[in-house]
């Protein structure tokens, strides 16, 4: 069963006093019955069908050079659409933002380095940090997306990126995105970092510029429900009756049959007699054959009998009188 988290937006509590006051419920009941005649618009959870998210960062992919960014230390550059830090000096690059106190912000960017390096990001109000300092784990030589949810501890006016080491290794950053989750989903309904990572993964590089429809939740929910229904409604394959060869016949009252289940296991029920000894009883079709020869022991009117399954699909009689009823019930994997 898929676990579905539906993000809902709680409506405001609005109670319209339109009727006379009604009787109260008995204490211990599921609850007081409340006032009759009131039109209670509470407890409405309205599904959010469309979510338009805005990347608060301007020029987050550095496609317009340093436009929107402030190079405080005057030591960074934009090369091939990436912010490149090529100095051992501490640097600070900033972008002015309107940070709301106690709001949660999803923050993500790509980063890589050619050696050990460290970069920290934070929200600031002037020179004062208004969020925890978020260190990044920089991958060597390969871009990796660093994402986190940052909760503002006060009002702020900028994002600050600072180098936090004295090594001279080259650090490259790209595709910054910051989304105010509290504003978008409502306080208390903010999704997790993992959920946001998933939502953004539909975009190239998990990044977009400006405002985009984050996802149509109704479509997503319908899709997942359809998946679950398809899984629940999946029917097992019907039994298949084989073509018996070399004089082998089904015993009266029993029909030989086989099928393959959803896990790729072939189930065989074989009830035959009167065929030619050491001959092929029937042949399993492609896809229903074992990967190696199998020796199956069965019963022939009380005595031990044996058949051999060959990888080519033939089921050969091996032992047991052909005047006896051969009975075999077995299963095997096809992979």
């Amino acid at each position, binding site marked *: 069963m898929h676990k579905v988290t539906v993000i809902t937006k709680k409506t405001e509590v609005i109670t319209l006093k339109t009727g006379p006051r009604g009787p109260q419920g008995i204490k211990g009941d599921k609850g007081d019955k409340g006032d009759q005649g009131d039109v209670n618009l509470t407890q409405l959870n309205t599904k959010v069908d469309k979510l338009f998210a805005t990347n608060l960062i301007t020029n987050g992919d550095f496609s317009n050079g340093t436009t929107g960014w402030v190079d405080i230390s005057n030591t960074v550059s934009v090369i091939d659409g990436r912010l490149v830090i090529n100095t051992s000096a501490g640097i600070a690059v900033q972008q002015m933002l309107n940070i709301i106190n106690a709001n949660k912000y999803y923050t993500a960017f790509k980063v890589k380095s050619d050696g050990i390096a460290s970069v920290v990001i934070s929200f600031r109000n002037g020179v004062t940090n208004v969020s925890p300092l978020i260190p990044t784990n920089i991958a060597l030589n390969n871009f990796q997306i660093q994402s986190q949810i940052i909760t503002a501890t006060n009002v702020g006016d900028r994002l600050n990126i600072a180098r936090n080491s004295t090594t001279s290794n080259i650090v490259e950053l790209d595709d910054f995105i910051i989304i105010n989750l509290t504003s978008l989903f409502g306080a208390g309904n903010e999704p997790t970092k993992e959920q946001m990572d998933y939502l953004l993964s539909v975009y190239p590089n998990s990044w977009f510029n400006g405002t985009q429809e984050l996802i149509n939740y109704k479509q997503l929910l319908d899709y997942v429900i359809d998946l679950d229904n398809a899984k629940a409604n999946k029917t097992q394959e019907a039994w298949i*009756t084989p073509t*018996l060869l070399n004089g082998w016949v*089904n015993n009266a009252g029993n029909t030989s049959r086989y099928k393959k289940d959803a896990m790729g296991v072939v189930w065989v029920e074989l009830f035959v007699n009167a065929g030619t*000894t050491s001959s092929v009883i029937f042949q399993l*079709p492609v896809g229903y054959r074992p990967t190696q020869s199998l020796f199956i022991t069965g019963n*022939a009117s*009380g005595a031990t009998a044996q058949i051999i399954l060959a990888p080519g699909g033939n089921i050969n009689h091996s032992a047991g*009188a052909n005047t006896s009823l051969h009975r075999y019930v077995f299963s095997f994997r096809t992979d």
Partner: protein
Amino acid sequence: MKLYRITNQEGLFLRDDFTWEEHEIGLDVVPAQGLYQPKWNGTEWVEGATEIPKQQPSEPSIEERLQALEQLELERMLEL
């Protein structure tokens, strides 16, 4: 997928399969049984083998008969 009885152009049974080649015929009919080489004559399965091996009934050996008797006795005891 549906399993078909695959024959050659003459109707001789080749195999049970889900697909068949251009020179073969896929039949959606009941499977044969009791025939050495089934042949579809257009309405039913008939014997297609030109030489039917003489059936040599393989009677149970003394050991097999004894084993069968022991099995029956065991089943009788378990029923008690």
